[in-house]
């Protein structure tokens, strides 16, 4: 859609632009990307972002492992992904150039900080010759800007060291991009003042850097055109920019307000879930109690203790933490207390690639406990939807007195999009199976419809009782080793989760109700799948998209949906986990499209795979579980 290579002297209008900022992890690329995103969002564009940063906080300066990137797409039409490839790459040093240039399509614009292309920096990343002069970048529109020098000049006279001055050069780059895309610097000026207000010299330096970048754009003649991306026609309403982790934290608080029960969050720091802890720690005014535990096990233990006491006990982590919490999740299954377990998935196994994306914990949260130990599992598809599914996780946990896993991932957690702010008053209230009447009380008596047991919390006179991890006798909850009772209780626990299927929406199908191909997805692959299906449909293909938000139990109509198409394709950033469940459950010959590169899918690769299937060929990779 974008064609930055086509240059006209005046301002040119584009539908969509994708920019990638790349630099050292100390260069402030995440901040630069975030500021540009905010500005675009406030302007009214649809936006989608992909932060991509290393696990090392400060890898050696100028090295390849230290490269941090932030890709954002902004558009005047609705978009679902941060873009398959950038139209513009801003590379702050040779390392950033080397590790990102492969993603820039021929004709793409490349803006580099020429000052960083020193012999030492070039050698560090294995460039034998300077790519700016050896002709290897001939396929791109290259704009060499001596960012460090120009920025230092703009900061002349400020009482700062050269090193301190250099730390502001990301704002110079940002200012230049604001000029190039005709964006106001005001939102960023306001942000700088709010952020560094107590340190006037830092405020001044950053504002000067930003302004200097903008002014450079105006005075230089190297750019032949400026570009505008008009505001998008989003549905009417009030919007803000939001990441998945932010939206989730808000959803959990909203659920607490609507259930009229306090939220308790026990967590141990882990990437990429920690931001939820940071966020919730700031919501004390809503009665939210946060607890940074000594380990993952203590975090879930405390959450179970809080739920036992009548609060909404919740814990959050990533895959390795789920492994540690699994025994306690089993306890919550046994004692049938409400609990929400957040899994913000990352690339594994083991420590894996902590900052990179993957959706390979589905089978772990489904089955990673001893015995038959069913829990409900929900998964948001977009950053904004993290709010809805967080709220929904609590609705189910409280109504059914069960642990619910909220399955997000690094891409959703850190990615941002414009979010239509919900009307708080219109959110439904959440009923809890609270018990206060001692008359005829039994701890394992069940609601005939939901099979939930009563929530009888300490402090309620006459309801003193004992629960625990030992098998419970039906109704009384006393310890029981009776064989038939155990069989009954296993089935009751299973049935309780299964009945949730009657209480969740049917799977929504985008496209024809039957046809040649259904692409079925879950989680953060939504955007790429939806965009691919839109393209295929425009090309006249009978292709539909359905996205599963409820992974356990599945929506009641899932079997019918997957049975209505000639082929079913399940793209996943794992080696075929939903595929395994769907094939096992519905005996449908679905095939997978699986890539585990720590990155989201591109629209084009899903589209290509779909085309292959439509042409009657077999799937390209890992088609069926073996």
């Amino acid at each position, binding site marked *: 859609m974008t064609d930055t290579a086509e240059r006209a002297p005046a301002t040119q209008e584009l539908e969509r632009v994708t920019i990638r900022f790349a630099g050292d992890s100390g260069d402030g690329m995440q901040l630069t990307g975030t500021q540009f995103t905010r500005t675009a969002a*406030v302007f*009214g564009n649809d936006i989608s972002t992909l932060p991509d940063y290393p696990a090392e906080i400060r890898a050696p300066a100028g090295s390849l492992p230290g490269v941090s990137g932030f890709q954002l797409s902004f558009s005047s039409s609705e978009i679902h992904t941060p873009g398959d490839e950038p139209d513009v790459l801003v590379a702050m040093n040779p390392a950033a150039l080397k590790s990102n240039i492969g993603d820039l399509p021929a004709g793409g614009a490349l803006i580099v900080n020429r000052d960083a292309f020193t012999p030492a920096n070039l050698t560090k990343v294995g460039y034998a010759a300077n790519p700016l002069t050896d002709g290897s970048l001939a396929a791109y529109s290259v704009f060499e800007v001596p960012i460090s020098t120009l920025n230092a000049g703009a900061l002349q006279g400020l009482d700062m060291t050269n090193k301190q001055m250099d730390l502001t050069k990301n704002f110079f780059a940002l200012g230049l991009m604001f000029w190039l895309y005709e964006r106001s610097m005001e939102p960023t000026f306001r942000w700088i003042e709010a952020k560094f207000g107590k340190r006037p010299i830092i405020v001044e330096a950053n504002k000067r850097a930003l302004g200097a970048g903008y002014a450079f754009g105006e005075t230089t003649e190297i750019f032949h055109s400026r570009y505008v991306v008009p505001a998008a*026609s989003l549905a*009417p*309403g*009030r*919007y*803000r920019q*939001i990441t998945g982790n*932010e939206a989730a934290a*808000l959803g959990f*608080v909203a659920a*607490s*307000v609507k*259930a*009229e*029960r*306090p939220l*308790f969050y026990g967590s141990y720091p882990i990437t990429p879930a920690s931001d939820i802890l940071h966020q919730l720690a700031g919501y*004390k*005014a*809503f*009665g939210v*109690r946060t*607890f940074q*535990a*000594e*380990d993952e*096990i*203590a975090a879930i*233990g*405390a959450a*179970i*203790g*809080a739920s*036992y*006491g*009548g*609060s909404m006990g919740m814990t959050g982590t990533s895959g390795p933490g789920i492994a540690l919490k699994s025994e*306690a999740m*089993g*306890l919550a299954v046994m*004692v049938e207390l409400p609990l929400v377990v957040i899994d913000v998935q990352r690339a594994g196994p083991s420590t894996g690639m902590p900052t990179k994306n993957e959706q390979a914990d589905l089978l772990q949260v489904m089955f990673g406990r001893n015995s038959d130990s069913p829990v409900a599992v929900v998964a948001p598809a977009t950053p904004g939807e993290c709010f809805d599914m967080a709220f929904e996780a609590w609705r189910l946990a409280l109504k059914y007195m069960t642990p619910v896993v909220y399955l997000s991932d690094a891409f959703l957690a850190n990615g941002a999009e414009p979010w239509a*702010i919900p*009307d*708080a008053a219109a959110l439904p209230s959440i009923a809890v199976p*609270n018990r206060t009447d001692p008359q005829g009380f039994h701890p394992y008596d069940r609601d005939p419809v939901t099979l939930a047991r009563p929530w009888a*919390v*300490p*402090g309620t*006179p*006459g*309801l*003193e*009782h*004992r*629960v*625990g*991890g030992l098998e419970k006798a039906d109704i009384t909850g006393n*310890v029981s080793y009776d064989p038939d009772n155990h069989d009954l209780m296993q089935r009751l626990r299973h049935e309780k989760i299964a009945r949730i299927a009657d209480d969740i929406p049917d799977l929504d199908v985008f496209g024809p109700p039957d046809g040649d191909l259904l692409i079925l997805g879950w989680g953060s692959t939504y955007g790429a799948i939806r965009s691919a299906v839109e393209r295929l449909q425009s090309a006249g293909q009978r292709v539909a998209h359905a996205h599963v938000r409820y992974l356990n139990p599945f929506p009641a109509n899932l079997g019918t949906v997957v049975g209505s198409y000639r082929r079913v394709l399940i793209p996943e950033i794992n080696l075929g986990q939903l595929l395994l469940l769907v094939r096992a459950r519905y005996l449908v010959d679905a095939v997978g499209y699986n890539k585990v590169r720590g990155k989201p899918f591109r629209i084009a690769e899903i589209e290509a795979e779909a085309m292959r299937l439509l042409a009657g060929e077999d799937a390209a990779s890992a088609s069926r579980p073996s």
Partner: protein
Amino acid sequence: MNGDPGLAGLSAENAAVITLTRKDFVSDQEVRWCPGCGDYSILAQTQKVMPDFGYPRENIVFISGIGCSGRLPYYMNTFGFHTIHGRAPTIATGLKASRPDLMVWVITGDGDALSIGGNHLLHAMRRNVDIRVIMFNNRIYGLTKGQASPTSELGKVTKSTPVGTVDYPISPLTVALAAEASFIARSVDTHTEHLQKTLDRAGHHHGSTFIEVLQNCNIFNDGAFRDFTDREVREDRMLVLEHGAPMIFGKDRDRGIRLNGHQPEVVTLGPDYAVDDLLVHDETDPLIAFMLSRIYWPEFPVPVGVIRTIDRPTHDQMLTNQIEKEMARAGTPDLQSLLDGGETWIVE
């Protein structure tokens, strides 16, 4: 409990003066420990002291881990939660942090607390979580039928260590002290009066409370403490601590502990040493507490009683203060303005 929607005032309704007896704390479940087990006495003393604290039954919660001791909550007619191995302090922490109005006890053993759950014990203690941990120390794994525990003596022959354990034991009291427990005590299962008194003091303390109860497992480690706890020898071989009193022991009250330099030694009162030469117990002195945690039979009499107690704000108090302060500052929380966040824009 301000600011806890839904739970506010739950226990205020129960504030009426109540008179309960031991019987009120006996549940309808049949007690199933081995006949002759020290756990019976600990259960009985625990039930006996409960009425002293003035809490209604429904505001008392017993939380246990795994092991023989873990069954105790089933026998208390209070709220009870038999959790998983080693994790009782975590569940208790979450409960107390969210329900400051409750009185929370943790029942654990030497394997549960010091082996699989060691980390949780440390952190519950250092946070000064207002929970009372009773650790049954029988120096053996009983429920799994007799393997060495973290408090088993070096060289101990058990099913898992047929030619003797090569692991050094740890001192539970030293661990509690290093973890900054604000109340540390030791007692003995069969010394019922002393045990009651110790539990009573523990129940009146606010903060992380650790009580080591020397408990005889008559099946897998019978007589582990007999050398100094038996009736005939106990006065000569145990030191009963009293705050502010000199450290005197012995049937004839003729021996004591004094400091020689910074080393404790046992001396006999008489021509060479007078009462004034003896160390005076101070429950607030960490150095005395450390010394007491390190001395043991046969070199020294075994100290029992309150080793240490200090007052400092508890975890739940500090957390609640933060919440209340923040609520007072922010006024009535408004969900809509939270959702709106900072920068918003309108699409017409």
